[in-house]
């Protein structure tokens, strides 16, 4: 069998709508028989963080950051019309009504379809996220060189 087409997606954003778009494409590509890698960096790292960190960050600024920037796919907010949580909640209700998976369900589905999830070590470092506080679906911790090497061989490459 010929080598699979590759897709790389950088998930830079941590907003619900953008993250869902990223997972929509990732799961769709996996279902098309493509080999998909998702790189979670900066705000996107929140998607693959556990909700309650086991290891507290060492620096006071990292600790403060953790308070205002909680992790977990369940906690993502809409980029528009969040309205203190009401807008996001309404969207979640509408999505459920349309049988759409939630963000945490999308993560699980992508993993089951064989999507490789990669966390950016630089973002982890300055956000004070320890590797034990990443969800189990994350299989690799890498830097930009790994991304570039994968992206170079990919037919589809997105930054979301």
């Amino acid at each position, binding site marked *: 069998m010929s080598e699979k087409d590759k897709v790389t997606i950088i998930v830079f954003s941590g907003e619900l709508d953008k993250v869902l778009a990223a997972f*929509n*494409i990732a*799961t*769709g590509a*996996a*279902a*098309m*028989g*493509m080999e998909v890698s998702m790189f979670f960096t900066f705000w996107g790292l929140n998607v693959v963080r556990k909700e309650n960190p086991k290891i507290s960050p060492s620096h006071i600024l990292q600790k403060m950051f953790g308070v205002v920037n909680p992790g977990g796919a369940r906690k993502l907010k809409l980029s528009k019309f969040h309205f203190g949580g009401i807008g996001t909640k309404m969207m979640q209700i509408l999505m459920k009504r*349309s*049988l*759409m*998976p939630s963000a945490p369900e999308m993560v699980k*589905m992508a993993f089951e*379809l064989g999507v490789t999830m990669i966390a950016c070590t630089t973002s982890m470092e300055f956000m004070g996220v320890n590797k034990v506080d990443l969800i189990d679906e994350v299989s690799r911790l890498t830097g930009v060189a790994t991304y570039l090497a994968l992206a170079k061989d990919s037919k589809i490459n997105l930054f979301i």
Partner: protein
Amino acid sequence: MDAKIDSTLDCYGMLCPLPIIKIAEKLKEMKKGEVLELISTDEGIKEDIVAWCDTTGNEYLGLEEDDEIIKVFVKKTVN
């Protein structure tokens, strides 16, 4: 559809990308040469199923539409 249907997948009410994910999963369980019928209400499936078959190498056999119900037929031709 004249061909014999070996399996049916009900994706009523589901939106993209769920139908193609379900098809991909279902075809994995099926044997080469078998025909899958997909029931969908998503208008997008009409073009998506053609793109999916083109990309994966499976055979698109056609579709039937009855009001909001779209029935799509795919023959598994690759393992």
